[in-house]
């Protein structure tokens, strides 16, 4: 089932390891990254999100 994230294009372009509120929407309760087939974002944005989540995890932000 597709997930409705209520995010604008600007929000998605601003994705960064510092912007933890947006990153939390792309991980589930167990802190696992939600797959692209569920979030339905483009490949380029999804790769950016996964890299940002891993950086935020390294700094213990999320």
């Amino acid at each position: 089932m597709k997930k409705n994230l209520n995010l604008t294009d600007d929000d998605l372009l601003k994705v960064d390891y510092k912007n933890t509120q947006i990153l939390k929407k792309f991980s589930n309760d167990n802190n696992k990254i939600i797959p692209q087939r569920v979030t339905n974002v483009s490949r380029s944005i999804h790769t950016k999100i996964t890299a940002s989540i891993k950086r935020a995890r390294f700094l213990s932000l999320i």
Partner: protein
Amino acid sequence: MTNIYETTMIVKPDLGNDEVKNLSSSIEGFFNENNVVIGYKEDWGIKNLKFSIKKYSKGSFKFIRFISDPYFPKKLDNFLKFNSDCLRFLIIKSENELEEPTPQINKEN
């Protein structure tokens, strides 16, 4: 060739005022030695860590953005690696503008 880089550091939360001043002056000194100007600086304050790092459950976050040649980040990496007050750090090429504020500054804890 120059690029914009940014570094986020987690510093020990239990440092005294003098130790914090020493640390910041030593970092600034290192930047001056290499003729790199600090473009933007932020202090995110003491935050709860999601998992403990070197037995610390809290950490003081510092953020610096600067313009430098591609050789300086490696030197900075070596400098911070052997700094005992720095628990963890991340140096990356920045996609933001030099003086753009980060979303973390308004966030509590």
